[in-house]
């Protein structure tokens, strides 16, 4: 997957988790938390959805990498490059 495709996939997942949220103005460099209301349960869901959809394992100590769209895409790039 290219970085753009990974970004779209994250948007899909967020839409799934928070269907009432408007994601069209999401700024990639700002933390998700400042723009959409995600609690710890929702964060777990991003991780779980990635595992469900792409069999990607993200260890708990790496959850911090998922803070913003930019950092998430960067973190996932090597893991999703061959998908």
């Amino acid at each position: 997957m290219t970085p753009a495709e990974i970004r779209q996939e994250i948007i899909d997942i967020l839409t799934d988790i928070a269907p009432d949220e408007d994601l069209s103005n999401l700024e990639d460099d700002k933390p998700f938390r400042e723009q959409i209301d995600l609690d710890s349960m929702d964060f777990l869901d991003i991780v779980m959805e990635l595992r469900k959809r792409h069999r990607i394992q993200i260890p708990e100590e790496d959850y911090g990498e998922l803070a913003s769209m930019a950092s998430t895409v960067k973190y996932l790039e090597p893991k999703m490059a061959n998908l």
Partner: protein
Amino acid sequence: MHYDTIIIGAGMSGLAAGIRLAHFDRRVCILEKHWTIGGLNSFYRMHGRDFDVGLHAVTNYTPKGAKHGPLSRLLRQLRIRWEELELAPQAGSVIAFPDVRLRFSNDIELLRSEIEREFPDQGDNFQRLLDELADYDDLDASNFNGSARQFLSNIIDEPLLVEMLLCPLMWYGNAREHDMDVGQFFIMFRSIFLEGFARPLKGVRLILKLLVRRYRALGGELRLRSGVRRILVDGRRAVGVELEDGQQLFADRILSSAGMVETLKLCDDLAEEQPAVAGQMSFIESISVLDCLPREIGLPETIVFYNDSESFHWQRPVDSLCDTRTGVLCSPNNYLYPEESGTLPEGIVRLTTIADFDRWANLPEAEYVRQKMWWYDRAIASAVRFVPDFRGHVVATDVFTPKTIRRFTSHVNGAVYGAPDKQLDGTTHLENLFLCGTDQGFVGIVGAIVSGISMANMHCLRQA
């Protein structure tokens, strides 16, 4: 057959946990003893009419788009759209004590203005209470214990107001007699006064059907009439269950919504009675079908919480089948259903009264039927001191008792809110047996669903 997780009970919490696990492709099986789903909050049809067992109000109501609170959390976690629950907000409710009535709605400002009117010097104290509540995190278990009466009395120095505030909160979610845990008080205060009441026109069956359909669509397995007789234990672990018909099923872990005492009783390794204490608070509930709408006879309120003296007694009846000094009267007609959805076919008044399980359970059959009728009359006679007398309009009735509750939930004592001591982290003496639902800590429909979700997350999804 080997599962990732076996869930005991197809009530609100078991179904919610099941959806989470099935969504993430776990092999999951829900085992339900009853022939139908819903547990405490099921539904039935009688003489051509649809009835709900429990539902007065869905608490924790927040409008579409709200980002905080248990309702939005559960919608997200279960991938349910807000519209799918078809929640119509309440018209308005009241706490009625002798000579004082406090109205409240889904807007806290109404309660505030009522308090300022009836208790002019308590306005600032009420604000202090709200400030304290704003800081409370209900997923943090560390400051849950402690006396709510004490806590409230430190802030509000008008005893009658303390009693009036506690009345609805205890009624809708306190397993403990006399007093309430501070944490439970915060949770209930928020769910009732800061968020509020709502109801789908079609009642609880809409919620249950939504949950079970979702669960099945995700590939989850549900077995009805499949009571668990034993939990099979090997050392520190549960390895599976044995059903009432002798069949054995195996799983990596078990999540039980049967209750703390009830679950421990199923465990192979615990031959003796456990010290865990079962709850005592049980109810009779009557349903009266009217020949008119409640509001046409001067009953526009959604829910009336009444108490006939200045002190609110929240305890098992000491010397009789029921204690009618306090009660909750609900009219499902009095919700603001959207015009296009229609209305309920008939006027309905539901009335809940405190009852004693043992006395009801020990009645011989004929006497049981007679007492049901007698206490129906007594309960209503008590209620009509606080609402217009609707007795002349009643065309049909049904009553259920602590025995009925026991049959639907298998809770010891028919305890509606389960055991007084909650197990907030859901753990048990076995490393892979967990509790969800009533005895984990969150009660009510929304509470039970959130409990199922969070226990599935914590114990089944985060691991493995």
